[in-house]
């Protein structure tokens, strides 16, 4: 298959995926544990709360959730794509560079310290998780940079990520064991990943950051294509591998840190969605990245809708649904399209 990707084809694919994403979001916004009548909801907010509950539920509760799920799903899927390309490892997911344990450590420190201030409408847990994630990635990068040299740098980075993850996970375990019971429960709940309603300001800021990050990652996609051939090949073809790697890591870490600070650690999306999209649309990153973002967003929106309706009035953590739903679906795709991908031969 040597069909070339033209701008027109890319634009059409992107457009259709965007329509699909918006349709999925709209559909999931009207599904929930309470019946909401659309006509009443669109007649606008009432003067006193409690008069137009359809509006409040749809616009005040469900819409922020759906938007957040789409943002987080897009961010995680994009990171997965980028890291799998740069690290040349099909098992790379957004948390491989220590982000998960760094964010978890930040979160548990925030819970234990019992702070009540908030920053830009985000809770202290979110801010600490964000800072923790970024510091950890910087630490892993330093270790990888100092210890590795040239060819083995990627391997050293992966190993450094694994070691830092393990160390911080042990610290998290220790802190969890000495915490009060409701603090422990809060932390574990946060670590399982969940989508909640956030305020408008938080949603706007994170949307701007995540979308800007994804778009900037899109600009290096053609270099990622070349990078997947290997460092030496890429250098021979004139790609500045060091700069590309640094840009990719920095942006991926940034948007994953934002996603994690908003919703905790939601696994599976960053690992499986890039593979699934690659199986169907091919490995060209200029198409893979935007489509993965859309599909990742749609996937998480659907998973969150299932998570909040299936055992009503309780809610499951989203991570449970992503794993249960994603696994078999991916196996089906794998069986059907495995001829296209060279890794699997």
């Amino acid at each position, binding site marked *: 298959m040597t069909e070339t990707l033209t701008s027109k084809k890319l634009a059409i694919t992107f457009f259709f995926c965007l329509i699909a994403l918006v349709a999925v979001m709209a559909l999931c916004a009207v599904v929930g544990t309470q019946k909401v009548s659309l006509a009443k909801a669109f007649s606008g907010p009432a003067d006193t709360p409690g008069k137009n509950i359809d509006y409040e539920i749809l616009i005040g509760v469900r819409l922020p959730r759906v938007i957040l799920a789409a943002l987080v799903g897009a961010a995680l899927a994009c990171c997965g794509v980028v890291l799998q390309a740069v690290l040349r490892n099909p098992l790379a997911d957004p948390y491989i560079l220590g982000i998960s344990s760094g964010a978890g450590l930040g979160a548990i420190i925030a819970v234990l310290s019992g702070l009540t*201030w908030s920053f830009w409408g985000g809770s202290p847990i979110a801010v600490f998780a964000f800072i923790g994630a970024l510091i950890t990635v910087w630490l892993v990068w330093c270790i990888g940079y100092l210890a590795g040299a040239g060819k083995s740098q990627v391997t050293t980075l992966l190993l450094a990520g694994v070691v830092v993850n393990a160390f911080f996970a042990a610290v998290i375990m220790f802190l969890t064991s000495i915490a009060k019971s409701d603090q422990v429960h809060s932390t574990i709940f946060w670590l399982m990943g969940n989508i909640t309603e956030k305020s408008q*300001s938080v949603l706007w*800021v994170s949307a701007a950051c995540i979308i800007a990050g994804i778009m900037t990652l899109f600009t290096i996609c053609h270099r990622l294509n070349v990078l997947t051939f290997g460092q030496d090949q890429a250098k021979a073809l004139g790609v500045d591998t060091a700069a590309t790697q640094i840009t990719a890591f920095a942006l991926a870490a940034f948007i994953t840190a934002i996603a994690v600070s908003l919703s905790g650690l939601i696994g599976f999306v960053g690992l499986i969605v890039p593979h699934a999209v690659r199986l169907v649309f091919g490995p060209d990153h200029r198409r893979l990245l935007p489509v993965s973002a859309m599909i990742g967003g749609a996937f998480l929106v659907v998973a969150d809708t299932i998570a909040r309706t299936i055992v009503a009035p309780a809610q499951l953590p989203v991570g449970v649904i992503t794993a249960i739903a994603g696994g078999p679906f991916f196996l089906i795709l794998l069986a059907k399209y495995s001829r296209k991908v060279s890794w699997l031969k």
Partner: protein
Amino acid sequence: MKKFSILLLPIVVVAGFIVISRYQKLLSLPTDEEQVKQPLISTQKSRDKTTRANKPQRIVSLAPNITEILFALGLDKEIVAVSSDSDFPAGATNKKKVGTFWQPNTEAVIASKPDLVITLWFEQQNQVAETLKRLDYPVLTLKIEKIEELLTAIQEIGVATGSSQRAERLAKEISTQLNDLQSKFDSGYKVKVLWVVQPEPLRVAGRNTFVNKLIELAGGENAIGQTIQQYPPISTEELLACGAETIIQTAMGTADTSEQQKAAEKFWSRWKTLPAVVNNRIYVVPPDTVLRLGPRLCQGIKLIANCLHPNENI
């Protein structure tokens, strides 16, 4: 591809402008710190309180101990929805449910059209409280982790629901009963108690828990010394050295405890040197009066006291 990147650059710049303009708007919004200093009933905008009736008619409670307090204040008709683990008194089980204590369902809360929502202060319920405040629902958030906080909370609920006199009476009743119990057991031998939270792996309640406070009020002493953890797992060595004279275990669930009692006695019988096993002072107690900080606190303390001093009439 270069054309693409040039196209995207202005979009990124515009996004940046949006962020900056939001930042300027955000600077003028009150931070959460200021909101915490305001009275605990808060909505996003400050509404004219006189337009709203002083006595809320539709109250939603998101915790079982809050439900018990509301019923004790005689507000059973005003309660429209409770969390699913509110099981006392019997009237609470007939109310509409809005999710569990750990995960309240915001949509269900809104669908019950409340004019007062009472929550506890911890992360998951805080998030629901924030969402409800954004939608202009009056929310009362309480911190009930100690006995003094329970008494303050009862009074705050009284003020919020327009039943301050009954609340004062209830708080006074509870505190008088507590003082009576305390003075009864103040002097006299303190029975060594091991409060088991989980038998396998063995986890007990340590000294800086509120369960410890109940034990002390009932005339006992925790067999375990000071630990950094609130609910420490302890080793067998430590268990044999602690010399516990009574072992109290909380039952799982509220079903019949006699089977759990037999299982517990069997479990503990392997450590024949413990004074509690020798004298067969092993008790399995139902958790809702002792682990819930609510109006039935004194009942819970009496229950513990009966376990500690089985020969006395309490």
